[in-house]
């Protein structure tokens, strides 16, 4: 049975602009508030929703926008189903990352078990989107601002990673609403999330996300 929760959208985040968050390093005092904020990511066993991805290439002064649906399953990992303008399907699991060309029905599997880069990638994506504090604290310096809404700033501790991901900002109110990833060159990818819905498991999904749930189940096989 669907446990649809009302979608909460904030057109502007009360916590201020993304760069402001990096002025507020996480302190022992602000840690409980952070964990409380991150709990919105961990509360539901399965979160589904729509996303808009805006990739900005600074050197070209160009934006590439794509849209689709996503699913974050506490057990099975994360699925990113890009629909427009070019369909692609990505599953980030604990042990593998699968790129599924749905049109050609061909899967490209990258084993995270045998490849530390993919393991790191999978771990980072999952820790960011699932709000696993210990994982985040291990790999990132954490910054945090909270009010009506929250902003979590993440800066990779590893210099080599910082060239690919210079910073990440997660923000939202009662849902994760926006993720901004900036690379070392100043290029950025912004994910805006909408229409979030929460479910018990993949079998209980109904409505707009039923098709995504079916794809998720198929890619896991």
């Amino acid at each position, binding site marked *: 049975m669907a446990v649809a929760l009302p979608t909460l959208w904030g057109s502007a985040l009360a916590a201020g602009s993304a760069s402001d968050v990096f002025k507020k390093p996480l302190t022992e005092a602000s840690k409980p508030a952070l964990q409380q904020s991150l709990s919105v990511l961990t509360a539901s066993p399965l979160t589904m929703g729509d996303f808009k*991805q805006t990739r900005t290439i600074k050197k*070209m002064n160009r934006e590439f926008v794509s849209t689709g649906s996503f699913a974050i399953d506490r057990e099975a990992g994360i699925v990113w189903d890009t629909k427009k303008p070019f369909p*692609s399907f990505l599953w980030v699991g604990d042990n593998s990352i699968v790129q599924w060309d749905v049109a050609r029905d061909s899967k490209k599997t990258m084993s995270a078990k045998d490849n530390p880069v993919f393991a790191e990638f999978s771990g980072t994506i999952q820790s960011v989107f699932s709000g696993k504090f210990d994982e985040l604290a291990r790999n990132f310096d954490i910054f945090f601002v909270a009010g009506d809404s929250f902003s979590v700033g993440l800066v990779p501790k590893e210099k080599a990673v910082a060239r690919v991901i210079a910073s990440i900002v997660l923000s939202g109110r009662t849902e994760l609403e926006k993720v901004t990833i900036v690379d070392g060159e100043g290029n950025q990818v912004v994910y805006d999330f909408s229409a979030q819905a929460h479910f018990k498991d993949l079998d209980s999904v109904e409505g707009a996300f039923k098709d995504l749930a079916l794809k998720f189940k198929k890619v896991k096989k």
Partner: protein
Amino acid sequence: MRPASKKLVSVIIWAAIHVALISLGLLQPWKVESDLYSVLPDSSEFKNVSEAEKALSARSMRNFTVLVGHRDFAVAKSAAEALEASFALDSAFAETRLYVDDSAMQRMSDFFFEYCNVLQGKPVRDLLKAGLKAGDSSAFSAIADMARQKVYGAFTIADLSHLEDDPFLLGAESFDYFTLHSQLMGGRFTLRDGVLAAEDSSVSYVMWSAALSPTVSTMASDGHVLARLDRVLDSLRLTHEGLRIEKSGVPFHSYESSRNAQSEVAWISGVSIVLILLLLLWAFRTPVPIVCTLVAIGVAICAALSGTWALFGSIHVFTFVFGTSVIGVSIDYAIHFFTDWKHGTSESGLEIRRHIFKGLLLGFMTTELSYIALTFADFPLLRQMAVFSIVGLASSFATILLLFPNLPLPQGDARAKSMAPTRIPAFILDIYDHFAPRTVVVAGIVLLLALVPGVLKLNIHTDMRALYAMSENLKRSEALNARLNNLGISANYFIVEGSSEQELLQNEESLVRRLDSALDMAHDSVSSSVKPVLGGYLATSVYIPSLKVQEETFEGIRRLYASPVFGELLRDLNLSPDSVRVLEASPRYLTPQSEIPASFRSILSMLWIGEVNGKFYSAVFPLHVAANFEVSQFAEALPFVYAVNKMDNVNATLTDLSRVALLLVALAYLVVFVVLVLVYGFVQALKVIRAPVISCFFIAAVFGYCGIPFNFFAIVGVILTLGIGIDYALFFKEGGSRNLKTALAVMLSAMTTLISFGSLSFSSFVPVATFGFSVLLGILCCFALSPFSRR
């Protein structure tokens, strides 16, 4: 000629022989080999690339890794930094590596972008090939879709800043293929705080790797760089509580083996020499025979060294070990002279020589014949050992016959026959005299029958792997390293040959196509429970394809840009054709001399052997192979590819050589037998020869019963038994039935041989222990049987 003149002539001849021999050796530059690879026999199919293989092995044998571990990564890193600081500027190291430049990934990304139109992985090259076929636009579309996916898909880390220069994002595709998806990424090491680190059982390990300078020997010595490294590691352990150090690499094994061997040789030879000296002192009660025997041995070794040096240009340390037979036999000859000198009735040294001459000459000839036979074996080390022994024995024989007779005899009571310690030999001979001839025949037959099952169980096989016992510490370290690196480089690999660099790369690509077929089959059967035969491979041509392949790749990309797919992609990416860089008419091609990123350069330095004797060579290493993986299968019908199964090749060749050596010695013994028949007649010759021959069967039977493989080193022991053992029977034969002086001499000879070789069987160095055990058994049996050859 008067005796005084005779003596003078003898000394002059002896001196002339030795001065000539030693001068010959001194004229050569002195060179001692310690590298095992330099003496291992080449199997017939491998001879052509032997030099290339040796160059490759010598390079890999200098590399090693130290993992510095601690539960706290910061402590592990700090200790690794202290280690790097201690040795970074040390001239004993060709290089040391701790830090990884954080711009390395960027440099690789730039490299793949620069060569993206000529360097692509197999998936893109296959699509380009398919696209080149008329009418197959789906292959080109698939390449365009990869670019679309990188631009619009989620979580791509592709660098899009080159999109207008490379709209198909072929540089990013190439980067993905060669770095993220590479077999080299299979390990657990990741970049952490500027160093490579991995976790195992809650311990963080930091990798410090190094290569020894080519001038550094792997033989252990006090000031050796690995001894200094050990001292630094020990002090790091003291200053960083809970620090774990795991060492891995060939230099540690060579160093540990040679250090153990040296300390063992020191105590084994020390104990042996003391025991032998006490024995000789007990027998002769004067230091003169001992000093003279030591002089004879010293001169024999110098002569043997010089002769071997003059003939081979160098000498291997193994020759010293096996050349100890010279000491054993030199002592035997000297003992026979001095037993008569001290306890005999001869009036002068010349008379002693006359008495012992026949037995000594026959013993000398039979021993020399055995060694001469070995020089026909096609194995340089065996030949070297044989020549060393031939020259050493000849020198010893000359010293006994030409120099010792000049010694003045002991005077008065000092030479009393009654002083001779003959009680034990008399007791032993009494036992033999109690045996009735019929009892001896029956007992002999029973003994021979008892040996048969053991001989039938004999396993003539040499396995070099079983001869090296790794210490527990090194075993644990190697296991951890293999687990963390997970590269799975196979011990069996390929060496590819070409008359030019480009031909070599093309030849490699022919082999790589076969390996790719096996990989494709492995991927197809990924769901099955059967373990794939091959998990991957490392080859130079993957990173630097031949110009032919690069031209094919470029032609495919040129056609890709000319196809309608290009326009569709520009439209989907909202790129104007005017803003996109035009594909160059002639790209920049990669060659082995091109500047490539350091991380790939280090792989290529392992694979690319380069020019050897006018031809070019490289190695191709299979990765994660199954037990049934056969390198020779992949090299079949590719005349320029050599399957290197080094250990199996060496084992098979040593096993064959063992058989050949036995056959050669058997032939030599046939000649010895003919000589003995001419001297003593058929029956008596048979009596002399039976002791060493039965002893050889005795050794074989004991090895068979104990289930110990009868390897090359055991067989060298057999050859030595045949050479030395026959002397005892000959001396008894010449000495007469109740000659206690002869019995004493043979007993002393056997005891000294048993002490010197028997002690080797306590060595932890398996080849030496096997050799010692074999000689111990053989000499024991020879000594037990030789009294039966008395007149």
